[in-house]
């Protein structure tokens, strides 16, 4: 610790390689992080970012290469050893037990004890302190995690990592589930940690964040390190070129001209989570839905799709009253829903790419004959959306997030739906794949579908939508044109009326 000259890197990984089932996922990767530094890691889906982070935190063991922590060579056999060595990690996926309290989750694996038993009072007190230190007093140590909203759960994750007193903190897409104003809170937190001398490895697909926070950026592509640059010397364009290996011309496809007729209408439609809503989805139009976490956007999509259906009011499709009571009815009526929780609700992970893509056709419109033609057309769709996989028979679990999302899209394209509900369609998806998905969404609208797109990412919401509605507390807070400003959306979402432009 007392080395005066060039400080040792807190964490240095050298020549790391890893393969799964004989397929190489990482090779010859070098990366390090210094005290007080934020080192960002970017790359396409499946580039190997999370795998690298899991090696650093003892979840996976590298096939080759070495790790040093504060100059000392270490071998981390499991997460416990990594924690002991001072490495904390916030995983890409939530890592919480919904049935347990916040305090129990935060101290899981490291419960303080007194006279041999868990000192629950100390645990709660420490948790309360930590929550206060990140400015999240609304979360209480005794709350059951399952009752918290997504953003609050992310806070719990962060507090959990902080409670380690980690010298090295890895954040794997910590903002993927956060809305923009919540991201600000996270920024503040990161800076505070930085000031404490903690070294941070920061994985994100949001380039803005990367530029805001980091001092260095490493780009991974296909499991190899392409480049490590000082953030000050980097430009987004150059970064994207490194990541995807080509130029990305413009971020968003052109918007629609004149919207078509109303395809879906809601009049006073509501349920336990939604206050009466009046809304139109028009054919040919992308309707953006903005709002904070928990504002009811997903609840709206899920009600339209019959998951938790409307219990009041009217819904019409093509002028005819409908009220889907199950996703099945909705699918058969021509509605499709791409969920925000790809792994939990979107995919059957042990099934093949092809079987997942065929799932809606088979489930909602089963038939005994003619399966061959259907399979052929789905194969074509998978090719058209450019799913990258070892083959259509590969289990979908082994695909990267972006490719998994494309499989879900292919599934719905096969149904030729007239109404598409996208819930955070590009969450956790790299810039290249993101652009492809944006193209697809726009293309669907252009072909006459009515598209509803929920997004917590304001640039995406503004870039894609022809029209925007903003939700707050389960109700529509207002409607905005497609070219509205970020401020306008935010003020409607938060209910601070002063800045609403006329």
């Amino acid at each position, binding site marked *: 610790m007392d080395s005066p000259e060039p400080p040792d890197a807190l964490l240095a990984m050298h020549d790391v390689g890893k393969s799964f089932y004989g397929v190489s996922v990482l090779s010859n990767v070098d990366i390090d992080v210094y005290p007080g530094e934020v080192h960002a890691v970017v790359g396409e889906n499946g580039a190997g970012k999370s795998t690298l982070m899991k090696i650093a935190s003892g*979840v996976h063991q590298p096939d080759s290469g070495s790790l040093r922590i504060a100059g000392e060579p270490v071998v981390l056999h*499991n*997460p*416990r050893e*990594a*924690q002991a060595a001072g490495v904390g*990690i916030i*995983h890409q996926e939530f*890592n*919480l*037990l*919904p*049935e*347990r309290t916040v305090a*129990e989750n935060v101290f*899981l*694996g*490291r*419960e303080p*004890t007194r006279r*041999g*038993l*868990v000192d*629950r009072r100390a645990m709660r007190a420490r948790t309360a302190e930590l929550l206060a230190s990140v400015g*999240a007093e*609304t979360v209480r140590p005794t*709350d059951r995690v399952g*009752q*918290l*909203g997504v*953003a*609050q759960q992310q*806070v719990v994750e962060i507090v*959990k990592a902080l409670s380690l007193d980690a010298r090295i903190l890895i954040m794997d897409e910590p903002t993927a589930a956060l809305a923009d104003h*919540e991201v600000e809170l996270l920024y503040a937190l990161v800076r505070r940690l930085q000031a404490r001398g903690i070294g941070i490895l920061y994985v994100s697909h949001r380039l803005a964040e990367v530029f805001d926070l980091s001092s260095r950026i490493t780009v991974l592509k296909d499991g190899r390190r392409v480049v490590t640059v000082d953030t000050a010397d980097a430009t987004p364009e150059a970064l994207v070129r490194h990541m995807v290996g080509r130029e990305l011309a413009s971020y968003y496809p052109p918007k629609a001209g004149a919207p078509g007729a109303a395809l879906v209408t809601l009049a006073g439609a509501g349920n*336990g*989570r939604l206050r009466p809503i009046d809304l139109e989805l028009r054919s040919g139009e992308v309707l953006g839905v903005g709002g*904070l*976490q*928990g*504002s009811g956007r997903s609840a709206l999509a899920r009600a339209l799709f019959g998951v*938790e259906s409307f219990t009041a009011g009217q819904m019409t499709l093509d002028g005819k009253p409908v009220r889907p009571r199950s996703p099945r009815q909705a699918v058969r009526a021509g509605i499709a829903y791409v969920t925000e929780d790809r792994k939990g609700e979107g995919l059957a992970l042990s099934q093949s790419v092809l079987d997942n893509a065929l799932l809606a056709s088979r489930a909602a419109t089963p038939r005994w004959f003619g399966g061959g033609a259907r399979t052929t057309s789905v194969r074509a769709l998978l090719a058209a959306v450019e799913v990258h996989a070892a083959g259509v028979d590969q289990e979908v679990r082994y695909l990267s997030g972006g490719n998994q999302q494309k499989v879900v899209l292919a599934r719905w394209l096969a149904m030729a739906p007239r109404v598409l509900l996208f819930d955070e369609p590009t969450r956790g998806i790299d810039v290249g794949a993101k652009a492809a998905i944006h193209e697809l969404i726009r293309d669907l609208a252009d072909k006459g579908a009515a598209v509803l797109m929920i997004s917590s990412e304001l640039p995406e919401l503004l870039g894609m939508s022809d029209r925007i509605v903003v939700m707050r*507390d389960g109700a529509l807070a207002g409607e905005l044109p497609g070219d509205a400003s970020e401020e306008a959306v935010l003020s409607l979402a938060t209910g601070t009326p002063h800045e609403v432009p006329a």
Partner: protein
Amino acid sequence: MTTLTARRPRIDSTNGVWLALGMTLIIGGILVATDGGSLFGQNSTVSLLQRAAGLGIVAVGQTFAILAGSLDLSVAYVISLTSLIAAETMAGSDGRVLPAILAVVAVSGAIGLVNGLLITKLRINAFIATLGVGLLIKGYLEQGYAGPAGSVPVSFQHLGYDRVGPVPVAFLLFIGVAAVAWVVINRSRFGHHLIATGGDLDVARLSGVRTDWVLIRTHVICSLCAGIAGLYLASRLGAGAPRVGAEGGYDLESIAAVVLGGTVLAGGKGGVAGTVGGVLLLAVIDGIFNQLAVDPFFKQVVRGVVIVAAVAIYAMRLRRKVVRKAAA
């Protein structure tokens, strides 16, 4: 950040079983009384509590396994085996009680260890692993024993026959085991890790819990409880009995008692208090039937219905709670 979490006293499914128990006692008491008997007479109370003891101790152990997301189908054979080990080691002599207890602890612990290792190191599903181990023990018992063997000294039979007032010593043992289990599950680090492992193995592992080790210890504890039940039965029967576990149906009945107590079969939710309720509920139902001299076959039918119905009611309440929460 928005908060819309409804905060109300938690209604646990483990409370449900106590409610059911209360109602069963009232209804059963009336039924038995109209039949001219008494459910709460000294004799029937004693034998009710007595019978709860054996199953109860096993069920406490099974609670550990189920909470951890596992399951133990070998307990019935462990009970038979340990009853024999106890009685044969004691061989009627007072001086050998302690060695016998140690032998039972060692053997049942070792079986639990094997179960745990099969599940964690060889990655065999708990259902199959413990079924296989059960078959192995069964083979050994059938090969070696044609009936009860060994004998227990009178001093050790106090455990099986003595009472404190109307409460059998064995029932106190059960409550003691349950109390220790409660502390372990709710207050120890191991207990926290156990529930986490059952709730989500990956989350627990990524949080630094040594889940393999937790599961191994869980199975050792579960087997030890079966061993204690074996000791109790040896004391009650005066000998070791190679079929007492299987004929008593301790495997499936202990699982039923745990689930009846509101512990979720998939793990991660529930507790030992519910299990105590579940065991008592089964015992009370049995006691009522005994008093009413209900046909043993019909009893079986009612038992099946009660188990399914109780769990269905918990599930419905849980679902309603979710809906209410959503509506709040």
